[in-house]
Structures are given as structure tokens and as C-alpha cells.
């Protein structure tokens, strides 16, 4: 393991990423002003592009950091000295999740047409809120991959201080974590699909709020178009997660765990939204559909937060 090179890369990510994220936050605050102040509104598109570019730059920085981990931290069998594997960590673990979600949201804002300026302004404010939350609650540049970093430091400190049996035990644990979690194909596919879905649901949510208020069919269509994209991706993402969960958590109590419950709640509520929308023209169904759509999005937020605040097999916080 080339720990020095790893630490240098980590420091560089902190030194470059932190100011970049604060700069992005300032841009997003300017975007709020531009979105609300009509004479400046037509320039907000340029700011959307600038914010996306800044977020993408930060993301590429994280990609580079993960690549450095791949190169600098090979895992050797301590008994035979043979290379056992390299960490191929996806760029949406630990504190990178909310950043990835925000990046996708900023991308969608580039493709939303300026047809309804109040709607676009609202989504821009939503994006700003996401950036502020990322900066202050889930900043991936303050301490990049804190959990992984702690594990690596502990491993490198203890591996040479124990006997051969202890070495092999530590190595087996590290190898299990590498193969079963970090390098798992599932980790590369399941989470990004879910965050892709979540990001489209944000736009759908804002369109539903405006649709309820204005009775505008275009906004209903907009809400539906973004929700259906998210729903396909969400469903496929959840289904792809099942075989992995059944194998990885065999014998462990994961069914009806809090995270599974809220995830299923989210899926059934979006399913209810699509069914309800089939009869939108019927009396009372416009409001019913809108309310179910809002409840469904509330469950998206609950699903994301549940990983951090609720106990269970999916939990990283409790």
C-alpha cells in the first residue's frame, strides 16, 4: 500500500474540492436572485450551466480520488504476498450520495425548457437548497470517504502488529468488505439508478405543486414525464437490488426493516400516483393525484434520510 500517495491525493481533494463547493453554493445563491428578479431571469440558464460545470468538476475530482485509491491501495495477502485485489469504489458511497443526487438534479435543470418561468425558478431554488444541504450536512470534500479512510488507517496500523493468524483474519475481513461491498457490481448499479430516479422525482414534485395550484395540464404532463422516467429507473434499480440483498443478507433480518419499509412505501405511492392519474378528468381526481404525488415525494426524502437516521441492515448511522 502506498499510503503517502493516498494521503496526498486525499489532501488535494480536500484543498480543491472545498473551495469549489463553496463557490458552487455562491453561484446557486446568485441563481436564486436571478430566478426571482425578472429582468435578470433570462440569464439564469447560464448560471445553471455554470453550476452544473462546477458540480461536474467536483465529481471528476472525486472520480480521480477513487482512481488513486485503486492504484495506491492494493490489497496483498499478508501471508503469501500475492496481490489479492484493488479497491474499485463507486463514486456514490458515504458522503458522496447527496452530492451525486445534486449533480443529477443540476443536469436536468439544463434540459428543462423555460416555458414556465415560475416553475423553473422554484426548481432552481430547490437546487440551491440541495447544494446548501450538501455543503453543510453531507460535504464529500471535508473528509473524503471517512469510513473507508478509518478502515484503511486501522488496517495498516494493525496488520504488522499481529501474528500470522491475526494477519490472515484482518486480511480476510478487508477482502470480504472489498468484494462484498466496495467492488460489488450491485454497488455500481443499484445506488446510481436510485439517485437518478430521486433526481427526476424532485422535478416532478415541483411540477405537482404548481399543477395543484394552477390546474395547468402542461404542468401535470411535465410532472408525469419526469415521474415516469424516475419510476422506470427506480423499479429496475430496486429489482436489481433484490438478488444481491437475498445473497448478501442471507440469514439476516432484512425484510420489513425500516429502510425496506420506506422504500416499498415510496414505490407503492408512485404506483398509486400513476393509477390515479389515469382518471385525472374525473371529479376530485386532480387533487387526489396531486396529493398522492406529494406523499410519494415525501417518501423519497424519508427513504434517503432513513439510511442515516433509522436503525437496520441498510443503516449507516444508527
Amino acid at each position, binding site marked *: 500500500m502506498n499510503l503517502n500517495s493516498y494521503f496526498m491525493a486525499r489532501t488535494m481533494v480536500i484543498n480543491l474540492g472545498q473551495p469549489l463547493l463553496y463557490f458552487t453554493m455562491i453561484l446557486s445563491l446568485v441563481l436564486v436572485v436571478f430566478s426571482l428578479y425578472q429582468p435578470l431571469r433570462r440569464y439564469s440558464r447560464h448560471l445553471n450551466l455554470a453550476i452544473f460545470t462546477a458540480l461536474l468538476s467536483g465529481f471528476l475530482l472525486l472520480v480521480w480520488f477513487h482512481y488513486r485509491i485503486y492504484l495506491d491501495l492494493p490489497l496483498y495477502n499478508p501471508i503469501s504476498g500475492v496481490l489479492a485485489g484493488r479497491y474499485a469504489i463507486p463514486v456514490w458511497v458515504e458522503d458522496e450520495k447527496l452530492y451525486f443526487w445534486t449533480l443529477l438534479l443540476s443536469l436536468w435543470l439544463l434540459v428543462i425548457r423555460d416555458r414556465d418561468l415560475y416553475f423553473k425558478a422554484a426548481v432552481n431554488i430547490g437546487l440551491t437548497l440541495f447544494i446548501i444541504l450538501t455543503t453543510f450536512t453531507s460535504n464529500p470534500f471535508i473528509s473524503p470517504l471517512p469510513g473507508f479512510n478509518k478502515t484503511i488507517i486501522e488496517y495498516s496500523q494493525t496488520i504488522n502488529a499481529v501474528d500470522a493468524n491475526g494477519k490472515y483474519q484482518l486480511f480476510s475481513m478487508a477482502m470480504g468488505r472489498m468484494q462484498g461491498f466496495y467492488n460489488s457490481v450491485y454497488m455500481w448499479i443499484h445506488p446510481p439508478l436510485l439517485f437518478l430516479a430521486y433526481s427526476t422525482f424532485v422535478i416532478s414534485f415541483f411540477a405537482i405543486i404548481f399543477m395543484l395550484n394552477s390546474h395547468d395540464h402542461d404542468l401535470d404532463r411535465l410532472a408525469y414525464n419526469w415521474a415516469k422516467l424516475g419510476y422506470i429507473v427506480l423499479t429496475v434499480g430496486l429489482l436489481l437490488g433484490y438478488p444481491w440483498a437475498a445473497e448478501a443478507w442471507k440469514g439476516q433480518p432484512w425484510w420489513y426493516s425500516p429502510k425496506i419499509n420506506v422504500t416499498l412505501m415510496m414505490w407503492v405511492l408512485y404506483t398509486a400516483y400513476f393509477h390515479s392519474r389515469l382518471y385525472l378528468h374525473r371529479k376530485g381526481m386532480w387533487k387526489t393525484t396531486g396529493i398522492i404525488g406529494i406523499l410519494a415525494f415525501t*417518501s423519497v426524502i424519508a427513504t434517503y434520510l432513513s439510511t442515516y437516521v433509522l436503525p437496520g441492515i441498510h443503516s449507516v448511522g444508527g
Partner: protein
Amino acid sequence: MKNLNFFLILATVIILTAIGISFFVGTVYSSTQAPNWTGTPLYQTYLDKMNVAVLPFAVALIVVLGICIPKRLFKDADLLKVNGLLLGITFLIAITIDAKTGIGFLFIAAALIQLVVIALTFVGSKRLSFERTGFFLQLGSALLHLGLVIFFFDFLLLADNPDHLTVFWVATLLIGLGMLFSFYSQELNHIGHREA
């Protein structure tokens, strides 16, 4: 017929929302328990309670799905007869053998009807009844519902079977394709130069 369609959709929405609320209650309950409670007998009690809470809605959803599928093929009095017959046989099997086998029969019947619906969609039959028209939309809806029937069947009856995952992947493929076709039917009609 239009009212029946509407009430079936409304029933689906209510059942799905009720399932959602059950999951929410389960989440609140389980998150207030002591750490590592999953290793205690309390966890099994919670699983049993969740099953009791969700099962009636799940059965209701399955029954609605079982009714929704024949409505593509049959109308009015015929639909009532077919549904009556299917639910009657399901009930009979449930009380003479067991509930699982009864629901399994309903799923197999629904899957067979759905296969006929798919075949008729391909040949452009006019006797099919859908909320909306269009080749890809109807094909998508049929594939999606067939996928869901297979998915539920797999989880209910094949959970411990060696082919469980194979059937799961078939259901996943059908659900994925079904959603793609029904949600993007207009775009696909345009690409395939088909009349919507």
C-alpha cells in the same frame, strides 16, 4: 364498463395507499425499538404483525389484479361470469387445499389470460379493452401486468425453489419492458410508424 374500470383503478389506488401507510407504521414502530432488537423474539412478533397488517391489502391487490386482467378480454356480463368463476375456484382451492395454492391458481389463470391479451395485441384485435389505445401502450401494459403476476407468483410460491431467481429475472425483464413500452408508447409508435 367505464365505471367499472374507474372503480377498479380507484380500488387499486386506495389499496396501494393503504399498503404505503402500513409500511409507514411499520417503519415508525421498528425504528423506536431498542438496538439489536432483531435478535430478540420481539422481532418475530413484529414480522408477524406486519404480515397480518399487509396481507389483507396484498390479497385485495391480487384480487383486483385478477379482475383487471380478464377485463381486457371480456365485457359486461361475460366479465362478471369469468371473474365470478375465477374467484370461486380460487376460494374453493383455498378452503380445500390452502390459500397459497388458491392464489397460485388465480395467478396462473391471470398469466394465461394475459398471454392471450399479448397475442391479440400483436394481431391488432379490436376486441381488447384498455383505458387508452395504441399498440405499444397496450403491449406495455400487458407485459407489465404479466411481469407483476409472475413476480408475485414467484415470491409467493417459488421463494424456496432453485428456479426462484430465474423466474425473478423473467419477471424483471417483463416489468422493465412493459414500463418502457407503456410510458414511451407515443415515441415508440413514432419510431415504428404505427398508428396510436
